[in-house]
């Protein structure tokens, strides 16, 4: 493949960012929107071309005779050389997962660009919004095509910043400002782990490049010379720390707290960044380093545990949220945790490590249907001007397109055949059961919860009881710019499950034939249908069951509603302990001890001079006394010394 096309994939968004960012104030909104959409559309076309060429051309540069898909660094430019060995390069690595991610990112990004034209119409800073979207697309694309872990870190930071800028888009709202700050700082904290992980890894590997590291993980292990730290090998530490970076971006427990707040950003942003693309970066990171994780099973176990706990926690919390975007946010957390678990349980000896494939498959399908759900939620918010389901209810008659697409999204995420979520979730559950029955059972339960809360949400929005406010302000379906992406994504969600994903993306890049595991599929389908049925009973029509349940378990409901007080705990640690105790005491120490010491030297000097100033009284008689006594003393001393 020529180099020019892949370069364009990165160059167009960043150019758009610069044009819209610097020149945005001088152009009309329409022009900015058209430019942004056009840029992203072209990028999407090129990305499709590149990815499809990679998968389907059969070019020996991409696939060898055995069907092994190759990792192709299309270009790799030296950016910064720390030492002769440790060189940071900026490049474009084409392999199955990066090609898959190219498709996902550009598709969703284009949909969101299009959707925003309708959604953001009339907002101040429309140009700025498109500039930031372009910046984000650039960073995310750069992240997935990274040829080395340091490039990934660079773009990792850049997506963090674009996320910060977009969450804080409504910068006049204090809640948006604090949410953006929180998102950035929490992910920054996680990135610290990532950075230290890279430091350790690169110290032993003497390289940042993925290809040598992942293709020959045993030599990496050998280079550490069996060094251990606190009982675990340094490689495990490095991998766990790198995963901590992933936990931050992917909102795993206990670093999940920023994601629900990030919903303060405009809804298209939530769909793009906080549902479909950026938050799966953690999964992508683990997938990218997967061969290395495989040789340190402890680190994979860590991934699995974190994922399993997070999945359950987020699912429970999602059941008790009022804000529809928060429900979707927790559902995102839960689904990403699903992918993490699937990665964590994947082993080469278990069906060729198809957990990995399932995880990537779910990443793909989830991106589509979650973006759909978020965009649908955006359409709802656009219609009723509120984020809470209490302001909705019975909307199905007013907004048919939104209703149907949203339903498709819910069915997909609940894992109902034949929607895309069913296939990927089935594969993941099968992989979990294959590893250990516990993971399978646990995650099946989470899948059931998922179906329950999604349909709770669905019913509360579209059924339940018609909201009286509609009389004054009749909600209606969104304009075509917003509806079109919904329809496209819904269509994709319907059919994406039938893609033979295993042919393209597997951990060892060899094709793998997917087959439905009937017992697992039957179980999960049954659980999902039962959960949906329960939700139907509880929420289809207005009835007192939910409030009675709530009254029966007030503590639990309150705890789940308040997200089990994680925010309060963090607030306590950061505000009370770090800010009030550590920072304030250090600042106090600086002013009152260190600075006071320095001032003290000055004061001592001043005091001393003040004290002996009296001797310079200007009284000549005093002088002569001192002079004379001094002379006598000197003479006396001389006298004594001589004789």
């Amino acid at each position: 493949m020529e180099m020019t096309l892949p370069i364009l994939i990165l160059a167009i968004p960043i150019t758009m960012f610069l044009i819209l960012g610097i020149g945005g104030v001088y152009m009309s909104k329409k022009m900015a929107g058209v430019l942004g959409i056009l840029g992203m559309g072209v990028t999407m076309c090129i990305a499709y071309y590149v990815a499809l060429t990679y998968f389907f051309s059969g070019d020996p540069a991409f696939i060898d005779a055995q069907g092994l898909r190759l990792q192709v660094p299309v270009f790799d430019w030296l950016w910064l050389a720390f030492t002769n060995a440790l060189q940071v390069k900026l490049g474009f690595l084409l392999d199955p997962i990066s090609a898959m991610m190219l498709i996902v990112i550009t598709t969703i990004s284009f949909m969101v660009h299009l959707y925003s034209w309708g959604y953001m119409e009339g907002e101040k800073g429309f140009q700025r919004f498109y500039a930031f979207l372009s910046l984000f697309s650039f960073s995310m694309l750069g992240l997935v095509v990274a040829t080395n872990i340091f490039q990934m870190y660079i773009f990792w930071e850049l997506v963090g910043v674009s996320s910060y800028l977009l969450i804080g888009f409504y910068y006049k709202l204090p809640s948006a400002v604090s949410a953006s700050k929180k998102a950035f700082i929490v992910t920054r904290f996680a990135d610290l782990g990532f950075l230290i992980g890279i430091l350790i890894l690169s110290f032993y590997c003497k390289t940042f490049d993925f290809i040598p590291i992942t293709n020959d993980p045993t030599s990496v292990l050998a280079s550490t010379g069996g060094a251990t730290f606190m009982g675990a090998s340094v490689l495990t530490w490095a991998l766990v720390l790198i995963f901590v970076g992933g936990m931050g971006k992917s909102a795993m427990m206990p670093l999940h707290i920023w994601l629900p707040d990030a919903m303060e950003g405009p809804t298209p942003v939530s769909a793009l960044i906080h549902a479909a693309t950026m938050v799966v970066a953690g999964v992508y990171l683990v997938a990218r380093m997967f061969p290395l994780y495989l040789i340190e099973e402890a680190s994979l176990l860590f991934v699995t545990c974190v994922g399993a706990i997070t999945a359950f926690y987020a699912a429970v919390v999602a059941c008790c949220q009022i804000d529809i975007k928060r429900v979707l946010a927790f559902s995102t957390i839960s689904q990403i945790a699903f992918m993490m678990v699937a990665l964590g349980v994947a082993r080469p000896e278990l069906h060729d490590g198809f957990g990995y494939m399932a995880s990537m498959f779910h990443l793909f399908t989830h991106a589509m249907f979650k973006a759909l759900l978020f965009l649908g939620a955006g359409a709802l918010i656009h219609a009723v001007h509120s984020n809470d389901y209490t302001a909705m209810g019975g909307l199905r008659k007013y907004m048919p397109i939104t209703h149907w697409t949203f339903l498709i999204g819910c069915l997909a995420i609940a894992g109902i055949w034949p929607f895309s979520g069913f296939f990927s979730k089935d594969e993941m559950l099968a992989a979990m059961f294959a590893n250990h029955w516990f993971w399978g059972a646990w995650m099946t339960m989470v899948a059931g919860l998922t179906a329950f809360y999604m349909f709770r949400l669905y019913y509360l929005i579209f059924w339940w009881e018609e909201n009286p406010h509609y009389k004054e302000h009749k909600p209606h379906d969104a304009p075509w710019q917003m509806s079109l992406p919904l329809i496209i994504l819904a269509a994709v969600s319907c059919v994406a499950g039938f893609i033979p994903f295993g042919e393209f993306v597997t951990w060892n890049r060899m094709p793998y034939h997917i087959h439905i595991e009937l017992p697992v599929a039957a179980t999960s389908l049954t659980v999902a249908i039962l959960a949906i049925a329960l939700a139907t009973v509880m929420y289809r029509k207005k009835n007192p069951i939910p409030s009675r349940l709530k009254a029966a378990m007030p503590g639990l409901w309150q705890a789940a509603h308040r997200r089990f007080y994680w925010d309060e705990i963090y607030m306590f640690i950061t505000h009370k302990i770090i800010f009030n105790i550590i920072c304030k005491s250090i600042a106090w120490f600086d002013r009152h001890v260190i600075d006071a010491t320095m001032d003290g030297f000055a004061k001592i000097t001043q005091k001393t001079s003040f004290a002996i100033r009296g001797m310079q009284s200007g009284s000549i008689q005093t002088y002569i006394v001192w002079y004379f006594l001094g002379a006598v003393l000197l003479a006396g001393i001389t006298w004594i010394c001589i004789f």
Partner: protein
Amino acid sequence: MDQVGNIILYFVTALVIIVFSVMTVTSRKILRSATYLLFVLLATAVMYFQLGYQFLGAVQIAVYAGGIMVLFVFAILLTHRPNQDEQALTSHKRVLGITCSALGAILLLFALFTMPVCEGTTLCQALTDNNVDMNAIGTALLGTDKFQYLLPFEAVSVLLLACIIGGVVVARKR
């Protein structure tokens, strides 16, 4: 001059110096102090004569006793109202003064009495054939060789000139 006469003269002048020195610094009437100082200066001039420095003695009388004392008296009269005595000494000051002077006196006298050189030459030996004649003084004062003092002489005269001008300037009424 015979020895006895010398000794008598010495004792008289020494006594005058000691007594009037003490009275100069203790008298509370300033004009009297000045007068006592005049006596001390005159006695010193006598001592110069006795030591064979007639010219110096004459200068002492003319400049010190004649010039400086007159200045002092003028100054006293200019700055004093009648019957204005100096106030009594505070005990603090007196103690300080006595301590200092006593310490100094002990040290100096102790030094004098233990120095053998002080007991060396007698006055008679010293005076023999060593009269300073005016010729020598004149030559020394206006010569430029070694041990000749034209430069300091001129310097002093310039100083005096400056002093005259300075005195006028400082004391001028504004």
